[in-house]
């Protein structure tokens, strides 16, 4: 058709690119495309200014694999987002945000979503161009003036010379039969523009230069320098500020330092009341509790004492608490070493200054641990008050049950004699208070008010304590009667032993 065809000798056929046929409407194009496909051509294409729907079927184009590539890369984006966030925030630099777990998926979903979309979209875009063989700025078709209408209002079919069925004359005739408006042969250019010869060298030099900045960074990695740093923003790095002892023209007193606001407590000055917070006045312990001691305070002290102190010191403060008993047992069996708790009614404790007891509670002493953590300051003083009251009460109260157990019956009887107020009526020195004196009576006959006598023995004493007026002895003031005393058999036995010693 074109003038080129007649001029091209058959020996230069490899320089032919192919043929292009022009159509003016989509219907003819689609019908032609079907025919070309049915004829068995493989290296051919249609060129249209817009995507013609249905043309894919006419041409027999297989559905692209692009969606699968996009899916794969999208999942890769999702995986990368998960891995990146886990590595950065949970592994390499764990962030503690309000005590939340360092790795929890919900907070990471937005970035996971964005990276999935980003990877997918970039893949859809770039993979599409790569699969289309673009960018390819050179194409023999684009040299043809008529072909410019392929992006405007005309439709083309191109068949390449490399196709096995291609034969210039036959294919031209074939295309003419399909209703093409115009058919033209397309040549490869006789000579291709070559790249500049020194380009390679320039590219190598440029590539080498690209390594210079990273090399400089690597060279200074992890090193210190004595050079002054560059201040990009001097007014941010070196800001005007007040110095503690500096002069100021702004304030009336000419100083930069200001006094704290009235009524405020400076940091670190909250515990300046050492008597209250440390139990010390200078180097010495305070003698008395530095606050008013009232019933509420003692109640609080007893309650706290029952929780923290009684397990070792016992509720009576004598050092016979449950822990001590168990520890003593283990010590006896050779399983433990145990320093017994202090008897809080001991004289040295009663003489201790209040501040020292406070310090013992706060800091511990010997093997007693510190209770500063468990007990706030006011509670410690409350326990000091209760301890002092308890010690004093115990010191004046007579022997403890433990001590009673170690005494002889006669010693116990002597104490009972006072406790049961026997001594209010009976003397032990022969004088008459109300009742008859009890010294030198045991084992002898005692005369009774009815004139008879009875042997002053165990049985008589037991009977006399339980029913005093059954056999009233003489020797006391006349007309006196004795009230029965609630006394156990063991106590009576102790009293009897005591009476035996009274001469």
């Amino acid at each position, binding site marked *: 058709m074109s003038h080129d065809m007649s001029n091209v000798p058959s020996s230069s056929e490899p320089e032919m690119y192919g043929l292009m046929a022009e159509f003016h*409407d*989509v*219907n003819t194009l*689609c*019908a032609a495309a079907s025919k070309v496909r049915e004829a068995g051509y493989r290296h051919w*294409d*249609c*060129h*249209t*200014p*817009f*995507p*013609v*729907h*249905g*043309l*894919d079927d006419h*041409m027999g*184009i297989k559905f*692209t694999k*692009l969606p699968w590539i996009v899916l794969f890369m999208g999942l890769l984006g999702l995986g990368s987002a998960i891995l990146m*966030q886990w590595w*950065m*925030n949970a592994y*390499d*630099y764990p*962030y503690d*945000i309000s005590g*939340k777990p360092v790795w929890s998926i919900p*907070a990471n979903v*937005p*970035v996971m979503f*964005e*990276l999935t*979309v*980003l990877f*997918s*979209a*970039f893949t*859809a*875009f770039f*993979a*599409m*161009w790569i699969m*289309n063989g*673009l*960018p*390819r*700025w050179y*194409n023999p*078709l*684009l040299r043809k003036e008529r*072909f410019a209408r*392929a*992006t*405007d*209002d005309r439709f083309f079919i191109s068949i390449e010379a490399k196709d096995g069925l291609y034969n210039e004359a036959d294919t031209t005739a074939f295309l003419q039969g399909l209703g093409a408006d115009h058919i033209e042969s397309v040549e490869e250019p006789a000579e291709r523009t070559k790249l500049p010869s020194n380009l390679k060298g320039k590219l190598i030099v440029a590539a080498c230069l690209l390594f210079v900045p990273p090399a400089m960074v690597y060279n200074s990695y992890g090193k210190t320098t004595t050079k002054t740093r560059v201040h*990009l*923003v001097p007014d*941010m790095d070196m800001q005007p500020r007040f110095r503690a002892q500096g002069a100021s023209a702004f304030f009336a007193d000419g100083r930069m330092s200001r006094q704290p606001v009235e009524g405020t407590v400076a940091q670190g000055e909250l515990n300046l009341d050492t008597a209250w917070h440390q139990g010390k006045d200078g180097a010495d312990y305070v003698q008395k509790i530095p606050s008013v001691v009232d019933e509420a305070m003692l109640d609080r002290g007893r309650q706290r004492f029952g929780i923290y102190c009684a397990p070792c010191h016992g509720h009576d403060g004598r050092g016979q608490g449950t822990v001590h008993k168990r520890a003593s047992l283990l010590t006896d069996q050779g399983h433990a070493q145990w320093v017994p708790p202090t008897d809080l009614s001991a004289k040295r404790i009663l003489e201790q200054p209040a501040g020292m007891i406070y310090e013992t509670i706060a800091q511990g002493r010997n093997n007693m641990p510190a209770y500063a953590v468990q007990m706030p300051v006011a509670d410690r003083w409350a326990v000091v008050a209760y301890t002092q009251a308890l010690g004093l009460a115990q010191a004046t109260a007579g022997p403890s049950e433990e001590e009673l157990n170690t005494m002889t019956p006669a010693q116990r009887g002597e104490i009972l004699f006072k406790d049961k107020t026997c001594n209010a009526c009976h003397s032990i020195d022969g004088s008459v208070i109300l009742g008859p004196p009890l010294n030198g009576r045991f084992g002898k006959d005692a005369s009774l008010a009815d004139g008879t006598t009875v042997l002053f023995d165990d049985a008589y004493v037991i009977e006399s304590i339980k029913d005093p007026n059954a056999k009233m002895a003489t020797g006391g003031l006349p007309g006196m009667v004795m009230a029965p005393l609630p006394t156990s058999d063991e106590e009576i036995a102790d009293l009897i032993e005591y009476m035996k010693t009274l001469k």
Partner: protein
Amino acid sequence: MADSSAITHEAVFPPALVQGKNDFHSITETVCGVLEAPKPPKSWYMIFGTAVALLGVLGAMIVYLIATGVGVWGNNQPVAWGWPIVNFVFWVGIGHAGTLISAVLFLFRQDWRTGINRFSEAMTIFAVICAGMFPAIHVGRIWVIWWVFPLPNQMSMWPNFRSPLLWDVFAVSTYFSVSLLFWYMGLVPDLATVRDRAKTKARRFWYGLFALGWNGSNRQWHRYERAYLLLAALATPLVLSVHSVVSFDFATSQLPGWHTTIFPPYFVAGAIFSGFAMVLTLSIPARKIFGLEELITMRHIDNMCKVIMATGMMVGYAYAMEFFMAWYSGNEYEGFAFINRAFGPYWWAYWIMVSCNVLSPQIFWSKKMRNNLTVVFIMSIFVNIGMWFERFVITVTSLNRDFLPSSWHYFSPTWVDVLTLLGSFGLFFTFFMLFCRYLPQVAISEVKNVLPEAHPHHEDH
């Protein structure tokens, strides 16, 4: 059948998407004619000149800001987020219509998108550039802005992926990248058209370079269309996610007035609302100046008015629901925040917002008003104003009276704030005017595709 004279073709079918006697070639001529004209219209010079002047103002403001510090703005405690964030959300919102029109309407097979999609995609990209600028300059020390990205730095620290502000970095940058790809991909066949019509060597080189050697091959169209569909399918959830993430900046905080679950859908509806308004603001003058009335028809404008009305009512519903929840929750702080919003020191801003966004679009119930370009243009400006005030109301009224009454403070912008906002319009319109002059404003190949003769008849079937 014969005398059903009452039922006309127009009453049953919508008007054609391309008006007038257009064929493939005349569409090419109309669109390419704009950028092939030796000189643009006078009005182009006026708008471009103004825009470049404002861009200069923006540059000066940014230099002043960086050289001095963010103290030049009105931001201060308790309103630490002032106009920069208001402007950021405003521009990001505008940037939503582009992808919505390109992607969502594409998936829903709304052919009317073809007339306006190129336009609104360009608008999206320029709006997102304006948006991204504000948080970037807001950080104060802009030379360490790269710390927001997960790159190794001298502190051996990584970004905190639990922060919504970081999600924002990922969402907005992904959105910008994907929108740019989408826009450029749509441009390639049209750039090839311009290349093939080029009369000068420079035009052939530059348009040819960016046309990537496109030759309309149907084997390439096949993958191209598939990739376009995939991008549309990816951009659709993306466009919804971006403004949701922007709303998380507010919603995940504990501040009354911000801490609500309604924010993501509410922000997305508002973004579509403002984006469509901006498309109208731009397309009504552009179609007249550049003679594109037959491609961007009254049907397009009518449809956009309907979208504005629908999204305007969604936004109005959100405003009402915020008040309802503030009352229904029984939370006295939340209740105070909303009473303060409507009747506090910023009552004027709240009622500007309500009148512009909820009341004014109601005029579009009338078809007469939808077809009156002057009314539509004025309404679109109202919506732009209203949506800027929405972001102002959300940001400033919630912050200015927070938990500590002793720190309550009435926020006022400085002259730098005002000029930076104006300057951002300069940036936007500079880009937009360059786009109008040098790139095809309408997607040529897509519009050709909605012509009846673009579809083959299957006579042989």
